[in-house]
């Protein structure tokens, strides 16, 4: 489904990605692991079009998307979360959920003279499914960090998608929400979603992932089944410092 071909990226003199190649298969969960600074989030940003690579290509469903703008990539069906939640602090939960529904909101004239009736039930159901116990009119600035993280995941899933990219979905949340998110991801695996995940919890990666790719200093040092990768000497040295 997604092919990363010889991607290279430098920031100033620092080589963040030194030529990565790998494939994300459809209906599989692929985990991207590696120590901090390995280039995982940079790769996410390159796939999503937020960062342009210096060299290489990103092929999504046999189309080269390397130079496409981020919104076009998102509309092709690549839906992502961010490590640091990116929501709109002065807008409400309802505004967020409406935004992921479709792109009809992009039309100026269509929107200013039509008063679409609110269909609260549909959105309240989303909140219930994701365990967000707040009303639709709650402003993002009034949500806890965990609730924001949950809302971001809910939006990523509600948005029409073919590939989910989740950047440390449980980072910074309490144990209860962590467990909720992990259960949700296991459910998504059962539903055959295609997921590319960055996570530091190796036990969870072992449980969830079908395929693991280990990065270190911008290069793929090992890939394969979770058992194979997590026992690999290079991975242990780089990632676990053993």
């Amino acid at each position, binding site marked *: 489904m997604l092919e990363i071909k010889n991607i290279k990226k430098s920031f100033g003199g620092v080589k963040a990605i030194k030529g990565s190649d790998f494939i994300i298969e459809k209906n599989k969960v692929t985990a991207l692991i590696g120590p901090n600074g390995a280039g995982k989030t940079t790769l996410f940003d390159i796939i999503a079009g937020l960062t342009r690579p210096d060299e290489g290509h990103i092929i999504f469903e046999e189309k080269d998307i390397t130079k496409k703008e981020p919104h076009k990539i*998102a509309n092709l069906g690549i839906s992502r979360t961010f490590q640091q939640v990116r929501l*709109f*602090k002065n*807008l409400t939960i309802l505004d967020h959920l409406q*935004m992921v529904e479709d792109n009809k*909101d*992009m039309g*100026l004239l269509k929107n*200013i003279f039509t008063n679409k009736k609110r269909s609260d039930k549909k959105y309240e159901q989303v909140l219930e499914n994701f365990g967000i116990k707040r009303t639709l009119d709650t402003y993002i600035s009034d949500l806890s960090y965990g609730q924001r993280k949950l809302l971001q995941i809910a939006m990523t899933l509600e948005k029409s998608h073919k590939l989910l990219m989740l950047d440390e979905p449980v980072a910074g949340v309490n144990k209860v929400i962590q467990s909720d998110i992990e259960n949700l991801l296991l459910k998504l695996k059962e539903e055959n979603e295609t997921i590319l995940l960055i996570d530091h919890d190796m036990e969870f990666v072992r449980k969830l992932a079908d395929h693991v790719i280990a990065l270190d200093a911008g290069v793929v040092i090992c890939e394969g089944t979770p058992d194979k990768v997590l026992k690999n000497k290079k991975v242990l040295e780089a990632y676990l410092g053993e």
Partner: protein
Amino acid sequence: MLSAFFIHIAVIIVIYAILAVSLNVAVGYTGLLNLGHIAFFGIGAYTSALLTKNDVPYIMALLASGIFASVFGWLLAKITSRLKGDYLSLATLGFGFVVYAVMLNWSKLTRGPLGIAGIEKPNIFGWYLKGSGSYLIFASIIAAIIIFIIYKIVKSRYGRLLEAVRDDAIGAQALGKNIYKLKIQGLMISAFFAGIAGSLYAHYISYIDPSTFFISDIIVIFTIVIVGGLASLRGSVISAIIILGLPEMLRFVDLPSSMIGPMRQMMFAVILILILMFKPRGLFGKIDLE
């Protein structure tokens, strides 16, 4: 005599309320710190004055002033589409200077520093707006229509997108929203209504010259927006009344005429400092100044 003075102040307040509300679309709702807004006001004023001098009916000239200003809004947005923060502000400030320099130096078209005099009062399908009272009614109707349209825009799903771009442009892109298109449209809407305000101003004062649209005048418009509050239309309107109305009260204080001008500037500054110190979001603002 006194009522004529109040009507004059009221017309100026109405025109500046339109300017402030339109600036709020760019700054408060879309998050584009446009320091060149006064240029759109000037473009609208010159467009309308020149067209009516060439026998174009006023209503056509009024619309053309908005359209022409929004074309420049598109141009400015295109040029600055990849800029943000301080860089964007500086670029828009530069745009204000360029437009001012063109008004000053393209003498064949604008008559340069001499300005354009004798701009006729509007005649709208036989309603000849000769007196200040009738002009106040006309300007108020136009302002009400503009505020209604902007209200509909900012309260719509489209308006929420503009706010999303302001709060987190990258987050909006990740949801599949074309933020460049939204920024361009935000600036064009803002410029359109500033152009209309320019037309109203030109035909009210009957004389325009480049000094009216010098970049320093943006301070008054920004003061109105900040005191009223970012992303608040009601705030911009009420603030226009306070910021422009209050200093006029000085005329009734026994002060030498040479002091009234500087005192007025001091009042702007004091109101702005007090608001920033005690109510940083402004009177009705929804969002923080960042």
